[in-house]
């Protein structure tokens, strides 16, 4: 029985340093304040790099052990000890978390380096770096926590860091609103996670991964289904999946390195991590798994459609992130057949999307922070390095062999077709359609930015970015060339993750031969590129977005009405509800209290008239009263 398998078989005292180093950086920079302006960015970058080194050391230690005993844990302290309920604060590093640790610290450090130059002229650069370090620490805690509750701490931590960084330039009200929007939408997802934790506690009395995994199996199908659905809600919030996807586009208000690190490479993939980490829950709950697949498919098409209509380069990339994470969620929903591919696509996507976002940042750096692609064009001459690296990322994301996206996305499409029966065909074809649309909108981004006629204003002088910015992009684009082949060759990543996510899983007979799927995917990509070629290369791109467009374009430009829908269905009724409640409070509750007061106030105005001030009146009343008392006493006597 797989449930009897222990997640960790050894211990390591180094794990705490992975989290502690960047947390230390954030603390020092926040406490030292302006005094650390001169060296803060160097310290933050150094500590993030040190965390990466610890991660590499752990990787080599892990490689020296064999498959089943690679997971290690570190017990920190007893966090909650209340009767039978006990939560240990502990870290768990296994084959799954090490992938994330290296991605977070590796890409994170590169983006720290990039930000040194990108944020050079911002006088709040130190604060920016302290938030980045806070993010790295929280994200590492998220992937290293050994229980749902520990994960939750990191989960909230990255939410906070994301909020702080989206609203980094909060002097602009629109950016501050974007930060709030991200935070509030995420909160709905976080509610899902807390429900999942409560369900686990109520049903099993434990919240640790190991404890819940021990209960996995068909006998707890119903509990696992509910828990799976709650976890899916959490994943949808954090990973911008349907129906909680609306925040990601606005999150592009943050500085571009943040978009690259948090809203492309790492934090938004936390949902995929959560689903993969909770594989024992989903494997016992087919209904929840089906919901995961549906959410993934809907989001991958949804994001891709939005991407086709965006003129803002960052928003186009954000829509593409949403769509790519849709692929990962789809793969994670396929169960043991897909977890490894979800992680593979997550890692390759981390490389190529981060490199493209940094490329977009480099373009903005040279173009006075312009983001409208209609004002770009022909930048390949002015920014050769950015052009080349962005081009490599482009080839990777649309899935051209031998770049990394080809291997990872191809595997997902393959796994989707292999899901079996009509379901397999539907999600497989949806994934293929997504690949075609991806090719279309990414070609559009590429063409509008780097090809065609120059459309920028005369006072803009595009130039290549400094080496401190181009170097991280180059390193990341090497990743986007090589990572896919590295992970896919001999199914290396699949075998690496097998002890964690796919114990005892035997692959069935594939519905379609891999080569057939590859050819279909390439045909879809070619169609997408060809359509973009016809629309954006043969016809010159206009410098101002055309307004006489079809209703479908308008639909996509408005993010498929996601905001209008949320506003009409959730925000307005919510507003009406609060208004009604406030009305009730003012009129009924306050009315009762104030009415009582007014009643006695009014009564006293009348009653006090009795006090005339005439002594003789009082004397008469006393006399009458005394006479009445006397009469009553006499009457009682008789």
């Amino acid at each position, binding site marked *: 029985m797989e449930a009897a398998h222990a997640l960790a078989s050894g211990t390591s005292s180094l794990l705490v340093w992975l989290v502690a180093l960047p947390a230390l950086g954030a603390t020092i920079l926040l406490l030292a304040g302006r005094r650390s302006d001169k060296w803060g960015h160097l310290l933050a970058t150094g500590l993030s790099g040190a965390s990466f080194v610890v991660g590499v050391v752990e990787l080599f230690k892990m490689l020296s052990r064999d498959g089943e005993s690679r997971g290690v844990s570190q017990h920190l302290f007893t966090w909650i000890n209340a009767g039978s309920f006990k939560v240990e604060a502990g870290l768990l590093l296994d084959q799954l978390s090490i992938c994330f640790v290296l991605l977070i610290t590796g890409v994170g450090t590169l983006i720290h380096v990039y930000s040194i130059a990108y944020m050079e002229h911002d006088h709040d650069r130190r604060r920016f770096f302290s938030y980045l370090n806070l993010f790295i620490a929280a994200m590492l805690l998220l992937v290293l926590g050994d229980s749902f509750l520990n994960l939750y701490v990191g989960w909230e931590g990255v939410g906070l860091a994301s909020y702080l960084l989206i609203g980094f330039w909060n002097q602009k009200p629109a950016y501050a609103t974007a930060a709030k929007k991200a935070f509030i939408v995420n909160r709905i997802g976080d509610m899902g996670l807390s429900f999942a934790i409560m369900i686990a506690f109520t049903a099993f009395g434990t919240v640790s991964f190991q404890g819940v995994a021990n209960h996995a199996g068909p006998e707890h199908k119903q509990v696992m289904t509910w828990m799976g659905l709650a976890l899916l809600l959490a994943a949808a919030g954090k990973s911008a999946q349907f129906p909680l996807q609306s925040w990601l586009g606005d999150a592009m208000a943050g500085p571009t390195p943040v978009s690259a690190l948090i809203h492309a490479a790492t934090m938004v993939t936390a949902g995929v991590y959560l689903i993969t980490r909770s594989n024992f829950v989903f494997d016992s709950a087919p209904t929840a798994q089906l919901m995961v697949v549906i959410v993934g498919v809907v989001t991958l098409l949804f994001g891709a459609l939005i991407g086709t209509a965006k003129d803002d380069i960052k928003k186009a990339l954000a829509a593409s992130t949403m769509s790519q994470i849709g692929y990962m969620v789809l793969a994670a929903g396929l169960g043991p057949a897909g977890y490894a591919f979800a992680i593979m696509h997550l890692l390759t996507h981390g490389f190529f999307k981060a490199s493209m976002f940094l490329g977009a940042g480099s373009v903005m750096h040279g173009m006075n922070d312009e983001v409208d692609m209609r004002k770009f064009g022909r930048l390949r001459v002015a920014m050769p390095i950015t052009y080349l690296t962005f081009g490599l990322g482009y080839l990777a994301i649309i899935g051209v062999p031998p770049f990394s996206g080809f291997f990872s996305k191809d595997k997902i499409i393959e796994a989707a077709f292999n899901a079996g029966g009509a379901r397999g065909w539907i999600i497989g074809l949806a994934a293929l359609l997504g690949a075609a649309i991806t090719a279309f909108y990414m070609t559009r981004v590429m063409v509008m930015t780097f090809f065609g006629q120059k459309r920028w204003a005369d006072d803009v002088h595009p130039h290549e970015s400094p080496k401190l910015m181009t170097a991280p992009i180059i390193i990341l684009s090497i990743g986007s060339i090589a990572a896919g082949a590295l992970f896919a060759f001999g199914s290396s990543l699949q075998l690496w993750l097998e002890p964690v996510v796919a114990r005892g899983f035997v692959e069935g007979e594939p519905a379609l031969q891999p080569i057939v799927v590859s050819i279909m995917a390439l045909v879809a990509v070619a169609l997408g590129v060809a359509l973009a070629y016809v629309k954006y290369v043969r016809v010159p791109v206009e410098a101002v977005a055309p307004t006489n467009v079809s209703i479908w374009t308008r639909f996509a430009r408005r993010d498929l009405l996601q905001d209008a829908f949320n506003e009409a269905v959730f925000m307005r009724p919510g507003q009406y509800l609060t208004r009604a409640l406030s009305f009730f409070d003012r009129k009924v509750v306050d009315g009762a209290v104030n009415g009582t007061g007014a009643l006695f106030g009014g009564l006293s105005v009348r009653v006090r008239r009795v*006090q*005339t001030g005439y002594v003789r009146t009082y004397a008469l009343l006393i006399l009458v009263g005394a006479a009445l008392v006397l009469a009553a006493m006499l009457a009682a006597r008789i």
Partner: protein
Amino acid sequence: MNPNNYLVLSALLFSIGAIGVVLRRNAIVVFMCVELMLNAANLAFVTFARLLGNLDGQVVAFFTMVVAACEVVVGLAIIVTIFRSRRSASVDDANLLKY
């Protein structure tokens, strides 16, 4: 002599005093009427003491006299002060202490 006559006298005096307090405006007269009521009560106490054959009523009558003396001291002082400031001894003029 029939003790009832004393009681009737006491009741008459009390009624005269009470009517005087309610009807008269001059503070001095009102005051004298109050004294009349107190003394009517004293007469009733003494009569009952005589009827019942113990001294309780007579003791209370002495207490009443002491209280009446104190009352006169304080009351007259107040009336004189009010008269000095307002040039009037009418109880209806001193009606500021009201709602």
